[in-house]
């Protein structure tokens, strides 16, 4: 599990890898916090839940990271570092009509104390989650 920053002319790009897809999502979130230079309060922890439905696993990743971007600007700024993620096929959830796959996330974090630079949006640019010998990998481009 890990990530590395990839050179991008105008924005930020990060390559992420992990042993399974939920871990890849969590690592992408941690990469986002690291790129932004986010420092959180050591005080009280906060919990939030998030659910999303998407056309495929890439759209769930964008929805998940976009949710974290949203929280950066809410309640005076929240960042999350612990995640319990579940990705379900809709057929297994018994839903008759569905766009694709379901994501359920419980996340824990804290108030943001400072950020070097905010990520403003998560893009689909060349986004593909691929199975490799390291598990799963993806390169994500962020708008900053």
């Amino acid at each position: 599990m890990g990530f590395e920053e990839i050179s991008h002319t105008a924005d930020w790009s990060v390559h992420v890898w992990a042993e399974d897809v939920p871990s890849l999502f969590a690592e992408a979130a941690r990469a986002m916090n690291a790129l932004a230079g986010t420092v959180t309060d050591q005080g009280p922890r906060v919990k939030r839940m998030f659910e999303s439905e998407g056309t495929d696993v890439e759209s769930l990743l964008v929805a998940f990271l976009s949710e974290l971007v949203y929280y950066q600007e809410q309640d005076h700024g929240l960042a999350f570092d612990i995640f319990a993620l579940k990705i379900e096929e809709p057929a297994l959830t018994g839903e008759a009509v569905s766009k694709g796959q379901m994501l359920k996330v419980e996340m824990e974090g804290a108030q943001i104390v400072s950020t070097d630079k905010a990520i403003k949006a998560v893009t689909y640019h060349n986004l593909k989650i691929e199975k490799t010998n390291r598990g799963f990998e993806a390169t994500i481009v962020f708008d900053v």
Partner: protein
Amino acid sequence: MNIENLVQISETEWEIPTYTRHDMRVPVRLFATRALLEQIMDDKSLEQAVNATTLPGLVGSVIVMPDMHQGYGFPIGGVAATEYPHGVISPGAIGYDINCGVRLLSSSIELESARGEMDSLATALNKYCPSGVGKEGVIKVSLKELDHVLRDGSRWALKNGYASEADLARTEETGSLEGADPGGVSERAKARGRGQIGSLGAGNHFIEVEVVDEIFDEEAANVMGLSKGCLTVQIHCGSRGLGHQVCTDYVQQFQSAVRKYGIDLPDRELVCAPMDSPEGQAYLGAMRAAANFAFANRQLLAFAARRAFEEIFAPGKQNWHLHQVYDIAHNMGKIETHEVNGKQMKVCVHRKGATRAFGPGSPGLPPEYKKIGQPVIIPGSMGTASWVLVGTEDSMTRSFGSSCHGAGRVMSRSKAKKEVQGDVLRQELEERGIKVRAGSMPGLAEEAPSAYKDVDAVVDTVSAAGIARKVARLKPVAVIKG
């Protein structure tokens, strides 16, 4: 792709023909000198321009400007026109920061008479113009009031005492796009935008105090109120979190729309929907609402800048006022009429990192600008010149009434952070007489002038190509960054 794949039309114009790749619907037309083109070749911007030519309903060519650089999906510095109403609209071809743009204010305060106050002025601007990551704005509006902002833009600011009729007259679309639909803007977007109206944000956005360094067109400069040696204020920002969320929401929704309408694209960030579809109409209404938010945002920042000028200069100067020169977008989708293959045609012009540059006599310009053409404000990289240009007759026929939008990045942000130290850069700028107020030193380093192309070379190119004409060059004396 390399330069040999391009057909050279002139010293400043190139084409990537449709035979270059099987899925191209139209050619790419590129305005650049060979030297700028070689810089462009360093990243994936040309590949992205070719990808953009696959959008359904395109007419003419996909145009790219000399400040072009790699974005995500659609290149920064790109212009694409799609036939209205059956062609598509693509949120990614307009950008996340909907109606990111520039406002220029002029004054008759001579720099030489105000050098002693520059430090205090920078501090006052920093105090009244909130900047920085997620920073809240000058005011906080209720959700009901926010809907008025989204519907009316600068007209809302006028009604609430933050603008004058003269400001609105010198704003693109008078700062209020018709057809804005606050109902198409999600609660999430409204939650992000509600507290941010009247704030600068971070990234490449800034407020600069500049001095008019050189005038190239006396008549146009007079009409605009620009005098050599006098101070101006430039405000560069957009629709903050609200616009980003609108784009995020519709790029997500359009992932299904492209399947529904059978649209096949080489990059998912280019997703689009026909303009006459429910999805396309919903995005158009929401995009216009976000654009109105950005117009109101820059208007509130102009109000705050005037407050700072009053505080510093009113005690000692009779004429300390700031007058609007113009406010213009460089990330926007607009329904316009252009000549395509000899026929007048209604199109949606997507401009992402490209500025509208309508020629003299064009509709929508205030009477005083009808004769000279639409003012085009080109922010430079921090520490280098900015430019004021005007649109030309040629820009109407060759670039869908568009020109460049800035210097254009040439160095990645990660490399800039490694090579430049924010505090050292600030020191260097201060030694050159530029007062700097910055919220983040790493953020300042990423925006170092060395990370950008030479803005003068970019402007020389559009000027030589005939798609804009030089009016004045501005040099920074104080920079406020988030």
